[in-house]
C-alpha cells in the first residue's frame, strides 16, 4: 500500500504538468453544457432537476474517458518508463491501482467542476438535492467503470490510437447492452438467463436507477465489482507481457 500513494501522486500531477488536464476539462465542461442546454433543452423543460444533465453523461464518457485511459499504460510502454516502473520494488497491483486511482480522481475533478449547473438549478427552483447527489455519485462510479475498462485495454498495446478505438467499442457494448439493439439480437436464439445476464451488464440501466435517486446497493456493487474485475485483468495483462 506504501507504493500506491507515490504512484498516485506522480500520475495525478502528470495530468496538470501538461496541457492535457486543461484541454480535457474545458472540452468536458463545454460538451456537458452543450448537451444539457441545446440538446437537452434544460431551460425549456421548466423542471428544476438535473435529469437532462445526467442523461448525457454515459454518451460523453464513452468518448472522453477512453481519451484519458488510452495513455495510462500505452504511453509508459512507448517511452520506456514502464521498464523503470516495473523494475522498482513495487508490486504490480500497486502500480495498477495507483495509476488508475489518479485517473479516476482526475475525472472526479472534471465532474466536480460542473458545479455551476447545480448552483443554477438551485437558483431557479428548489430541486431535490439528494437526487442530484445520487446522480453525481452514479456518474462518478460509471466514469470509474469506463476508466477501468480503458486502463486494462491500454496495457495491451503501445499504440494509443488502438487503445482508444478498442476502448470506445468495448465501452459502447457495455453501455447499450440492455438496449433493444443488442437484446433483440440475442433474444431470437439465446436462453432467457443469458439474455437477462447480458442486459444486466448495461451501464445505462444501472446508471439510470441511481440517477433516479434510488441508491440501490446492487447498482453500486455492479460498478465497483466491474472496476475490480478490470483492474485484476490489468494486472494479469501486465504479468503476461513479462513473458515477452
Amino acid at each position, binding site marked *: 500500500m*506504501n*507504493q500506491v*500513494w*507515490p*504512484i498516485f*501522486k*506522480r500520475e495525478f*500531477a*502528470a495530468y496538470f*504538468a*501538461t496541457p492535457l488536464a486543461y484541454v480535457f476539462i474545458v472540452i468536458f465542461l463545454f460538451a456537458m453544457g452543450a448537451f444539457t442546454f441545446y440538446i437537452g433543452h434544460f431551460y425549456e423543460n421548466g423542471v428544476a432537476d438535473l435529469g437532462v444533465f445526467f442523461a448525457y453523461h454515459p454518451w460523453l464518457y464513452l468518448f472522453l474517458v477512453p481519451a484519458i485511459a488510452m495513455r495510462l499504460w500505452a504511453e509508459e510502454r512507448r*517511452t*520506456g*518508463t514502464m*521498464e*523503470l516502473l*516495473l*523494475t*522498482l*520494488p*513495487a*508490486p504490480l497491483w500497486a502500480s495498477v491501482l495507483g495509476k488508475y486511482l489518479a485517473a479516476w480522481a482526475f475525472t472526479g475533478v472534471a465532474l466536480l467542476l460542473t458545479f455551476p449547473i447545480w448552483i443554477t438549478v438551485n437558483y431557479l427552483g428548489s430541486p431535490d438535492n439528494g437526487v442530484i447527489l445520487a446522480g453525481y455519485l452514479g456518474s462518478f462510479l460509471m466514469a470509474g467503470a469506463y476508466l477501468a475498462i480503458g486502463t486494462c485495454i491500454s496495457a495491451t498495446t503501445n499504440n494509443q490510437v488502438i487503445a482508444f478505438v478498442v476502448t470506445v467499442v468495448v465501452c459502447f457494448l457495455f453501455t447499450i447492452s440492455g438496449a433493444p439493439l443488442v437484446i433483440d439480437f440475442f433474444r431470437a436464439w439465446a436462453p432467457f438467463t443469458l439474455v437477462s445476464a447480458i442486459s444486466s451488464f448495461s451501464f445505462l440501466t444501472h446508471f439510470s436507477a441511481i440517477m433516479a435517486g434510488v441508491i440501490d446497493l446492487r447498482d453500486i456493487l455492479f460498478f465497483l465489482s466491474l472496476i475490480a474485475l478490470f483492474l485484476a485483468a490489468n494486472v494479469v495483462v501486465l504479468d503476461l507481457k*513479462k*513473458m*515477452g
Partner: protein
Amino acid sequence: MIEIQGLTKHFGQIAAVSDLSLSVGKGEVLGFLGPNGAGKSTTMKMITGYLAPTAGHVRVCGHDVETQTIAAQTQMGYLPEGAPAYGDMTARQFLRFIAEIRGFRGEGAKEAVARSIARTELVAVLDQPIETLSKGFKRRVGLAQAILHDPPVLIMDEPTDGLDPNQKFSVRSLLKAMAPQKAIIVSTHLLEEVEAICTRAVIIDKGGIVADGKPAELLARSRHHNAVTLALPAAQAQAAIAKIKTLPNVASVEQSGSDDGLVQITAFPKSGALLIEEISATAVREQWDVRELYAEAGRLDEVFRAITTHDAQRAKAAA
C-alpha cells in the same frame, strides 16, 4: 551477489538468450559486450525482473528474481536502455518519486535525493523538466535514479551512451569509486570503457557467452598483443624489415603505414614473447634513425571482432 544459471529467453521462435550462466561478486565491475541483438539488454531485463525467463534462474543477493521479485529489486539499481524517465517531471520531483517508491520518507528521502544529486552533478538542472534536458543530463538523471538507494547491485545498460568525453569520464569515475562495495554489470559498445573501468569482460554473441576474462586476458588474445611498431625514414625501411624478420622471436613483419617520408613497421611476436627490448637493441646496433617505437598491449576491438564474427565457435572452444 548476482548468480545466473542456465538463463534462456525465447521470443516466439527466436532464442534471444540461451543457457547463459554467470556469477558476479562484490567488487567486480563486469563489462557486458556484444554486437547489437546479441542479447545484452534482454539478459539485463531478466536480471531486473522486467522480463520473465523462458528457463533458468537469476538470484540477486540470495533472492530469486522470479519468485522474490520485490526483495531482489530492493537490492538493485537499474538504468534501463535509453535512461527512460518521466519527461514532464523535474529531476528533483523525479528523484523524490523514486525515493518514495523505494520506501524513503521525510528527511530520509531528502538525504537520499541530495546524495544522489551530488554524486551525479545534477545541481544545475534540478528544476527543469527532464524532457528539456540534454542527452547527457538525462542519462545522469537515470544514473542518479539507479544509485539513489545505494544498492549493493547495479545493472546499467549503456550508461555512457551519448555522453561527451568529459561526461563519460565523470560517470566512469563515479562507477569506479562505487565499485569496491558493489557488484556492477555494465553493458557497452565502447571497448575503451571496458579497459577503463571493468575488472572483467564478458562477450556474448547470439545469446551465449563467447569470452569471459579480465580485460588484460582478452587483450592477450589480440594479434597485436606485444606487437612492436617503429617508424623509420623510407630509405632504411627495407633493410630494417629484412633484419627484424631474422630475429628469433618475431613471427611476422608488416609495413603498416607510411607518412611524410616515414615508414611504419609492425613486428608481431611468436606467442607470448616480448619484442620491445630485442628490437630497440637492434635499432641501436644498426644505427636506424628511429622516430617512433612502441609496444602494444593488444587491441580489444580486434579480439571483439574475431570472437563475434567468423570464428565465434573456435573462440568458445578456446575459452
